[in-house]
């Protein structure tokens, strides 16, 4: 186990714990820069992971750090996407200006949702954001002049300062830059007074208020910041999918975004990125498994005779080819994570790291909750 001695305030204030950690992140960035050369076929998919990463970051700030659960983040993504496309295509504004305006508009929408949210707690807020998202989806479908209505709206490739980002490789680096930038911004924000106030609100609203945290200001700020991040992600998402239609931004997308933060690990920026990777990889794994599992089962049962193995092949194949299987599998993963690993992938990663750091002395109880009791939200 390594012990850290800090000898100056500079070390205390640094973004990274020590030079080792910093070097690891620099190495990771380097790896991501050469990644498209290694996996040229997956460049487009990996840029989608980066976009999901920004979405995860946005929801992590709100749900993971401020404790406000939103089931309406697909609406913010949609507002960002439609606003950006409207400004960049219909009004012909430059890309950067258009994205900035999209951010401002989504942040304003965030404030509009956040303001009534100040007076609501827990599940009321979740349901209010859900209602907001359903209304916004209807607006996307009806406001033909701006959104193209149900017919949808095509999106061009991005061009910054006259440089076209039409190729997948260029778009990859654009998304990477945005993700790195937003990560850096969020990490800094979270260790400032604002971030600490958010965490205080998450842990106990009443305690935070007693310590002088202005709930109204900080909750609205969390909503606005989260929505603004979603706005950037929406702009990139629009370019990525190339075509906007109202039913993309459905409740299911909101749920998928929440799944991302839960599976990744609530309350950690790593978790947002892990979750994004997970959500992006999962469909690929499922479709791979659909092709290979029946043959695998048949091979495993081969010693029992061809009849059994053929029968099993047919049965398993019919089962895995069911169209309804995938959402159920997502649901199952969600349920298993909540029941058995509430801290998500990041929690598992932290446990494994601690196991090796403390090698022979690791105790499982380190991460176990001392006491699970019912925390009542009732007033009487």
């Amino acid at each position, binding site marked *: 186990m390594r012990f850290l001695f800090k000898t100056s305030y500079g070390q205390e204030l640094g973004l990274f714990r020590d030079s080792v950690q910093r070097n690891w992140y620099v190495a990771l960035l380097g790896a991501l820069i050469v990644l498209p050369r290694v996996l040229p076929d997956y460049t487009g998919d990996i840029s989608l992971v980066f976009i999901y990463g920004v979405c995860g970051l946005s929801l992590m700030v709100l*749900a993971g750090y401020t*404790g406000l*659960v939103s*089931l309406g983040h697909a609406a913010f993504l949609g507002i960002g996407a439609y606003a950006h496309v409207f400004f960049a295509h219909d009004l012909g504004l430059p890309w950067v200006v258009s994205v900035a305006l999209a951010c401002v508009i989504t942040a304003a929408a965030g404030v509009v949702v956040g303001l*009534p949210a100040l*007076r*609501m*707690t*827990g*599940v*009321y807020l*979740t*349901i*209010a954001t*859900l*209602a*907001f998202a*359903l*209304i916004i989806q*209807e607006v996307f*479908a*009806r406001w033909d002049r701006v959104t193209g209505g149900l017919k949808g709206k095509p999106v061009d490739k991005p061009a910054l300062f006259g440089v076209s980002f039409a190729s997948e490789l260029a778009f990859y680096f654009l998304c990477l830059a945005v993700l790195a930038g937003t990560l850096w911004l969020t990490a800094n924000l979270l260790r400032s007074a604002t971030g600490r106030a958010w965490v205080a609100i998450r842990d106990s609203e*009443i305690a935070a208020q007693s310590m002088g945290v202005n709930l109204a200001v900080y909750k609205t700020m969390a909503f606005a910041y989260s929505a603004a991040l979603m706005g950037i992600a929406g702009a990139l998402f629009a370019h990525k999918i190339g075509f906007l239609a109202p039913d993309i931004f459905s*409740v299911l997308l909101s*749920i998928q975004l*929440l*799944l991302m933060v*839960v599976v990744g690990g*609530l309350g950690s920026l790593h978790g947002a990125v892990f979750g994004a990777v997970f959500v992006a990889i999962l469909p690929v794994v499922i479709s791979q498994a659909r092709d290979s599992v029946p043959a695998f089962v048949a091979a495993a049962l081969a010693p029992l005779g061809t009849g059994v193995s053929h029968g099993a092949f047919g049965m398993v194949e019919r*089962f895995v080819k*069911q*169209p*309804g*299987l*995938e*959402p*159920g*599998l*997502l*649901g*199952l*993963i*969600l*349920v298993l994570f*909540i*029941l058995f690993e*509430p801290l998500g992938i990041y929690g598992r990663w932290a446990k494994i790291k601690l196991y090796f750091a403390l090698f022979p002395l690791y105790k499982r109880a380190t991460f176990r909750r001392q006491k*699970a*009791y*019912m*925390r*009542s*939200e*009732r*007033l*009487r």
Partner: protein
Amino acid sequence: MGTLDTVLQLVLNGLAVGCIYGLVALGFVLIYKATELVNFAQGDLLMLGAFVCYMFVVWYGVGYWAAFALAIAIVGLFGALLDATVLRRVIGQPQFAVVMLTIGLGAIFRSFASMTWGSEIYTLPTPFSAKATRLGGVTVSHEYVSIIVGTVVLCGVLYTFFTYTKVGVAMQAASQNQLAAYYMGIPVKRMFSLIWAISAGVAAIAGVLLAPVSLIDVNLGFIGLKAFAAAVLGGFGSIPGALVGGLTIGLIELFAGTYLPHGFKDVAAYVVLLLVLAVRPQGIFGAIGRKKV
């Protein structure tokens, strides 16, 4: 058809639709009052109820009433099992975990339904199907009447059960104060499972009543979203509130669909919900106050 007749017709249909919302909302409220869990899978339990009844009636040729009873029993039992195996583990965890857990369960149920019964759209034949009586200028469809009568009867039964039976009173005690109830010798865990069973059974009843009006398909459960509006409107912890909220949402929806421009019908419930929450964050019937430290 005069204006008055139109209004009366809308009121009748709105009340019928509202009864369904009210029943689903009732399911939310029963569980929330007892365990402080919010069950996002309530709509999907409704869907399961409708499918189970459909399966018995159409696949196995069981009579409508027997299939109705079987659907209630099976879904109710399933609710109790769900509580005993899964949901009991998350009591005391943050609200967020419960929301995500039940959303995940809902997805599993939908997936299960589409794999078992297929993703086509079905109609459930009932004794009331496609029959109507004309009263003056108003067409009284028997399906709607069955919904309203069913809801009234169910409310009466539930009211009697919770007020006059020993188990019902024990359940009330368990949901008011777990610890005190436990000290009085009430098996709190079993009571909670029973409440889940009742709540799931109510959802199944709503599903079977709804089935002839709205067709059965895997996404029937999304009606749960509107029932949320109903439950919140009534202030999540109040049983009469849930029913009143449901009726309100049903009426608003039908009137908005007729008198407001196209597209308002689907979102009217949510607009009202947001307005109510902005003005009265605890719902119309909810208790106002702050948590004491």
